[in-house]
């Protein structure tokens, strides 16, 4: 299974990548595989605040619906509007074009501590 080495992960199967002071958030390869065909993503509004561990959106797949949980707190500064017309991008490229939101972190150093590194996330999904 694909667990890129340069990302951090949550137990709820989101990933984040911190780049230029922003955290890009998506769901993992494992999560998209479990969900199956993604048919709709309920995205938050830009400017909305996200709180670590709380739902900021939902993801509808053919067989299931899942909440999206914020890996870290902060302000939603960008949403991936590609997903409005092509939600299946999440299935194809969960770590790339299928990213979901960008968050401007408010407390990154403290909140990054409970996140999982790639090895710990791999253990988590094989448990």
């Amino acid at each position: 299974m694909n667990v890129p080495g340069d990302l951090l992960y949550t137990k709820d199967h989101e990933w984040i990548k911190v780049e230029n002071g922003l955290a890009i958030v998506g769901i993992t390869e494992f999560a998209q595989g479990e969900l199956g065909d993604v048919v709709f993503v309920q995205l938050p509004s830009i400017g909305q605040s996200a709180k670590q561990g709380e739902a900021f959106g939902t993801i509808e797949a053919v067989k299931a619906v899942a909440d999206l949980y914020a890996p870290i707190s902060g302000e939603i500064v960008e949403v991936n509007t590609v997903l409005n017309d092509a939600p299946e991008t999440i299935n194809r490229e969960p770590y790339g074009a299928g990213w979901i939101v960008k968050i401007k972190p408010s407390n990154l150093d403290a909140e990054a501590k409970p996140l999982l590194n790639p090895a710990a996330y791999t253990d988590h999904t094989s448990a």
Partner: protein
Amino acid sequence: MKNTALTAEHEALGAKIVEFAGYKMPIQYHSIRAEHLRVRNTVGIFDVSHMGEFIVTGPDREKFLHYATVNDVIAMTPGQVQYNCMCKPDGGIVDDLLVYKFADHMMVVVNAANLDKDWKWLNSVVRGDVKLENKSDDFSLLALQGRHAADILKTMTRTDLTKIKYYHFEEGEVLGHKAIISRTGYTGEDGFELYIGNDAAVPIWRAILEAGKPYQIEPIGLGARDSLRLEMKMCLYGNDIDETTNPLEAGLGWITKLAKADFVGKSAIEKVKNAGLTRKLVAIEVEGSAFPRQHYPIEDVNGNKIGEVTSGTVSPVLNKGIALGYVPVAMSEIGTVLAITCHGKPVPAKIVKPPFYQRPY
């Protein structure tokens, strides 16, 4: 967990395997949505060998099944298949099933999840000179479904498929293997179900996948089987019908022949009919981008709960949420506006005339 004769084929094709009714079954090969559309647009092949087959012999076989089920078995002609169900004395549905009439015996095809229950039930209501045999482990069952099903199958059999009408069957050979060739299915498309010996399953499965290449054939998992049948408003036992639902409220009045002299459940179902139904299974379309799922509450426009979704999905053909559920008769008219609370949020919905999909050929 039991394997079908094709489990290794599914694993080799990369299917996601789940347990279903005690069997390892493919839920999807790569995408439920793509597999669904493949069947709607050209053709697909399913392994449904988990289904159960009972053979009924003896001089009273028809009289017995006529009594044990709600439909008119006596009226069947050889080579005919009949959709039917059997009920408890209180009218609750034990299972829905297919009855096959052969010249010298009958075959009853039941849901895998109910196989043990059905076997005990049929034996408990048995009457007359009949013999029941559970032959489920001796049959593999393939469903070839889609507008090009006949184009593929005709290259593999000498049976004249044009002579097999919908809901009829012939005994013949497929690639030299004995087969019951049945023009039936659970998808709303033209197609065939092939009852074959287990040793014939792998060669016929592979040959169909090969012969179907000009039509982009794909193997189809149980996930798409469920969404295909739901677009047709075909009931799924355990979701839309069970021992707490009667055939009339489930919309199965068309198979329930109350004119029959006697059958198990008749007086209870008659009572329901005379008193008037309290609820009905309806087809519901959801507006918007949240999708109905089993057990989501159905509400009236004032937010009062009036029922529950029994089956729900996003229709790959309509790109809309579709659902089945029971609502009070007074609110069951086509066009009635409702709401379904999807993932905590009420979403506008309305009752529509089933099926959700009609094949264009």
